Every structure is written in C-alpha cells, then in structure tokens.
C-alpha cells in the first residue's frame, strides 16, 4: 500500500513542477494564456487561411525545420468566403491570408491586413517583372504607398476544350458556352462571382457597352457592371443553364467528367487542362485538349497573393515574410507549379523542360495584364439576387 501512495505523491509533484514551469514560461513571454499552452508558446505557430494546393509538404517541412516554427493552415474555397471569415471571425485567428485580383487592396483598406516589407523577401528578385507592384499595381494599395501582397501564382478562368468534340470554328469566344450544338456537354464552376463576371464580359460585348465610356470613368471591369449589363448577363446565364451538365464543385469531378467525355468544354483555372495534357502525352486519353486563356471578348484572370494579417505580432510577421521568401525560392517554386498546375510568377525556366515551360505559362507572363482581374462584386446584394434567379430558373 505505501508504494502506491508514494507513487501518487511523486506524480503529483511532477505535475506541479511542470505547471509551475509552464506558468513561468507564460509569464516571461508575456502571454497571459493558460499554462497548458506551454508547448505552443515554445514553438511559434504560423496560422494561415489559404488555398489548399499551396500547402506543399516539402516547402512546409523546410520551413518548419529552418525556422523551428509550426505551419498551421486552414483552407477555404473562394475569396469572399475567406474575406467573410476574417471580417466576422476577426483577424486574431490568422497570421496570413491569401487572396487574388483586387481583393488584397480591399483587405488592406478594411484594416484586415498590413503592408509587406519586400526588403525581407529577397526572392522577389526571381519574380517576373510583370508581377512586381510597379507593373501589376494590385499588389500595392491605391496610393501606391504600401505593398499589400506578394504574388504567388497566376492564371485565368479560361476555357478548356476537348478538341475532338468541339469544332475548331466554335473555339475562341465565350459564346461557345452558349452554343446549343453541344447541349449537355458544358460545365462551369459553382461560384457566383466567376460565372457572373465571365458572362458579364460577353453581355457587355453584345450590348456594345464594353469599350464605350463607363459610368465610373474607369476602364471596363466585369465586376462593375451596369444594371442593363447585369440584366443581360442574367438572361445569358439562364440561357446557358439549360446547356450545362452540372456545375462542377471540385477538380476531381471536372477531370472525371472530361475524361469520361461527358463534358467537352468548361471554364476553369487550367488545372484540368494541365492534367489532361499530361495524360494525353502519356497516351492515357484519346482526345486532344486545348485551353483558351483569353477569349476574344476578354477573359478573367487572377494572381494569387500572400498577405499578412493586421493582428500578427512582430514575431509572426517575421515568420510570414520568411515563409513567402522560402516559397518563392526557385527550387521550392518549381514544386509549386508542378503540383498546383498553375502559371508561375517566378522565372524557373532554367529548371524546366520545354513542355513544362509552355504548360506553366512561363513565357506568357505578359498576358496576365490583359486579363480582367478578380474583384469584389460592385454590389454583392444585386449579384446574389441575379445568381438566385439563375439558380431558380
């Protein structure tokens, strides 16, 4: 019996000592939190709200190893979802967040993120000139004073086509997606923003308002549509809906649908296009694929970026810069484009084959500036209504 008692006593003593150490640690670090968080206080954690494909295992491992930090990602789907999450849940939850198009400026304007110090990202030197803030202005705030984001990959919402099924003369225009010859063989993604914006370009073209003077005095932006254009967009979307097989929710589904030859044309971020191209080369599919990055009416584009949350403390801000820098390092970056299948913003041609250079748009960085960048809808309420009407039709 006495042995048992001794045992409990000593265990309790150990627990006590541990708790004391932890409390002391918390005190030194100035963290008032419960001392159970001891282990986490010792290893700084970088908490990211990000797109899943960029969580590349090797880069993360290198980061965690080099900076003795923990990489803690949360994934999201669309820009507005992440924006809502930060706006509602607060910036305390995250140290870094990703966005594209015009969104980084909005985050900054709303005080959700803070400016980046490019001086701490020496690997920006490897980035194509087209993706520096002086040329790609959306990386800086409106006044051009602060760099609000760092680029990470780019692409469009171009149309991937099964060339064996779609006639050559039908390719090249957004109109293809309304061609009733191919009824039941289209698919678009399920997000309201891309659907409305892409069809908005076509609507403005048809109405002839695209290149005329705009109400806001700025050049045409498919996210700033007039009510007439929105009405036409809605009409087109309703017309298009009858032709759709489904709206794909995930790339697995789109891949499968294209491989099964159920879907012949679909606007997408060129992910499926790249996968199918590789499969074609390996002889695993029996049809050719092509990708129209910029239809003749105009196309949507995006540059994914990294931002630092306004609430990140100095330690985590340092870590965030270190992460961006490591991510843009050429050896790591090759892995990024290969695993994501997106266009690369870092010049890694020296590490690639000719095929890869073409596949990952390494020679086409200039085209990015010709695309309409993703933006916040001028009125989420109006867009919501249009989308509901389309979905209900």
């Amino acid at each position, binding site marked *: 019996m006495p042995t048992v008692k001794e045992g409990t006593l000593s265990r309790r003593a150990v627990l006590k000592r541990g708790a004391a150490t932890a409390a002391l640690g918390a005190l030194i670090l100035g963290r008032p939190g419960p001392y159970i968080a001891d282990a986490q206080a010792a290893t700084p954690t970088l908490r990211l709200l990000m797109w899943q*494909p960029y969580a590349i295992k090797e880069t993360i491992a290198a980061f965690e190893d080099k900076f003795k930090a923990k990489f*803690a990602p949360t*994934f999201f789907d669309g820009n507005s979802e992440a924006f809502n999450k930060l706006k*509602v*849940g607060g910036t305390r939850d*995250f140290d870094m967040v990703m966005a594209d198009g015009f969104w980084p400026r909005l985050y900054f304007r709303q005080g959700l993120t803070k400016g980046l110090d490019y001086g701490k990202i020496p690997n920006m030197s490897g980035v194509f000139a087209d993706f520096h803030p002086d040329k790609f202005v959306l990386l800086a705030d409106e006044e051009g004073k602060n760099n609000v984001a760092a680029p990470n990959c780019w692409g469009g919402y171009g149309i991937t086509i099964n060339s064996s099924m779609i006639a050559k003369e039908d390719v090249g225009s957004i109109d293809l997606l309304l061609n009733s010859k191919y009824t039941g063989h289209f698919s678009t993604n399920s997000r309201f923003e891309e659907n409305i914006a892409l069809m908005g370009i076509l609507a403005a073209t048809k109405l002839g308002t695209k290149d005329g003077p705009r109400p806001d005095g700025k050049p045409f932006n498919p996210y700033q549509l007039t009510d007439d254009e929105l009405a036409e967009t809605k009409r087109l979307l309703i017309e298009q809906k009858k032709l759709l097989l489904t709206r794909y929710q995930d*790339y697995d589904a789109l891949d499968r649908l294209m491989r099964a030859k159920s879907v012949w044309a679909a606007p997408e971020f060129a992910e499926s296009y790249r996968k199918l191209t590789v499969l074609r080369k390996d002889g695993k599919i029996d049809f050719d694929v092509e990708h129209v990055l910029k239809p003749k009416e105009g196309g949507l584009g995006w540059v994914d970026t990294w931002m630092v949350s306004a609430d990140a403390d100095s330690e985590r801000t340092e870590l965030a810069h270190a992460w961006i820098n490591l991510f843009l390092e050429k050896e790591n970056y090759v892995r990024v484009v290969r695993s994501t299948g997106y266009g690369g913003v870092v010049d890694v041609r020296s590490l690639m084959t000719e095929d890869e250079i073409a596949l990952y748009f390494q020679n086409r960085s200039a085209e990015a500036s010709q695309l309409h960048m993703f933006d916040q809808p001028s009125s989420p309420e109006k867009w919501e209504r249009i989308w509901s009407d389309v979905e209900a039709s």
Partner: protein
Amino acid sequence: MTSVGDRAEGWRRLAMSVLLGLLYVFLYAPILFVIYASFSEDIVWPFPPSFTTDAYAELFDNSLYSDALKNSLIIGLGSGILSTLFATAGVIGVLRFPSRRRALILIAFLAPLFVAELLIGISSLAFNARLLGLPGNLFSAIAANAVEGTAFAFLIVLAQLVRYDWQMDDAAMVFGASPLRCFWEVTLPAIWPSLFGAFLISFILAFNNLEISFYNLGAIPTLPSVAWGSLRFGLGPELFALAALTNGLVFAVFALMYVLMRTGIVKFGYRGV
C-alpha cells in the same frame, strides 16, 4: 408442421432480410469505394485498378491530417461526453420525478432535432461572432455540436429507459446505497448499452460534422473542414486513406463485438435467450 401461414411468414422474413442486406450494400458501397480508391494510383480514374500505398505514406508524412484528426476527435469526444451526460441526467429526471413541467422539459431536449444542422451552425456563428465578438474555437464547436448530440442522445436513452424499473433504485436505496452509489451499482449496469449507444451516435455526429463545425471553428482544421477546403482542388488521396483506416478500425471493433456476442461473453444489454 409447416402451415400456409408459417410459410408466408417465412417468405416475408426472407424478403425483409433481403431488404436489410440491400440496405447494407447501398450504405457500404461508397465506403468500399473510398477504401478501394485509397489504394489506387489515380483516385479520379481508379479503373482499371493499379494499386499503391502512396496515399498512406503521404498521410503519415503530413501533420495537417493528424491535426485535423485530433481536432475532430476532441470535438467528437467532447460533444459525445457532454451530450450523454446532459441527456442521461435529463432522461432520469423526467422519468423518475413526474412533474407538470415534464412536457416542457421533453420539448426542450428534443427541440434541436427540429432545427437543421445548417441553422444551428449559422445561428451559432451569427451569435458568437456578430453579437459576442467571439472567434470560433474548439469550445464553441463542441457546444454547437453537443446541442444536436444531446437531442439524439436523449432520444436513444429515453427509448431504452422507459422500460427500466425504477423500483430497483428504491430497493438499492433502502439497502443503504446513496443516490450516486445506486446509479453506479444498479442503474448504470442496466442501462449502459443505451448510454454507450447515445455516446457513440453523438460522437459520430460531431466527429464528422461539417455544417455545424464549419461555421464555428475559425482557424481550427477538422477532418470535414479539411475535406471541404481541399474540395475545390480535388480531395487528397490522404483523406481517402484516413477514411479507409478509420473504417478499418470500425470494422475491427464490429468484428470483435460479433465474436463476443457469438460466444456469448458479452451480451450488450440483450436479455433474451
């Protein structure tokens, strides 16, 4: 001895067992598909089969999934325990101490069944985030999940406990058992299978809950939220591997239960011959 009635009864019984079998096939086909795909080189196009265990290697290589699994387990266990405790206490209260307020208590406990998960998730988010200014965390996720879990647990425990003879507790008390001791010695041994069932159901509901947890978790990944986040880009084979492992474990537990029941070592509350 077989009369016409017996034969008809036999046919009905056979038909019902076939329906049950088909239901299991229907329910488990996607599970088997997940397991099959987890061993497949290309989960998008797993035919013709070509096998690999890469997904499993990746799974153990990536801390994201273990974090998500851990968080899912925490939410499942937390919500399961909380739900079972609330529900058991509630059922005992309602059954043992008749009162005019009983109907109100019943309604309160079963109310969550009439509120869709989506609504629970969204309203908790709206309340916590917009009104209280609280960021999502494990506790809010556990609480929001436990609401639904409590209702389910209440239903399960209630269904079993209506048959319990509370005089048994009177007997124990007269012979010197305090209420707690009485619960432990007499009530619990009789009702544990239903408590276990209630815990299991509320655990499972919370463990894999997407719609409630999604809106209440802020930065904390769980299995369903990882699945959701990676959806746009295609579900990682690791998720298939993880699901396959989970199911392997579940099947193993069931196989063990079957053996125990078969040999009659444990009856799990079954009182027949």
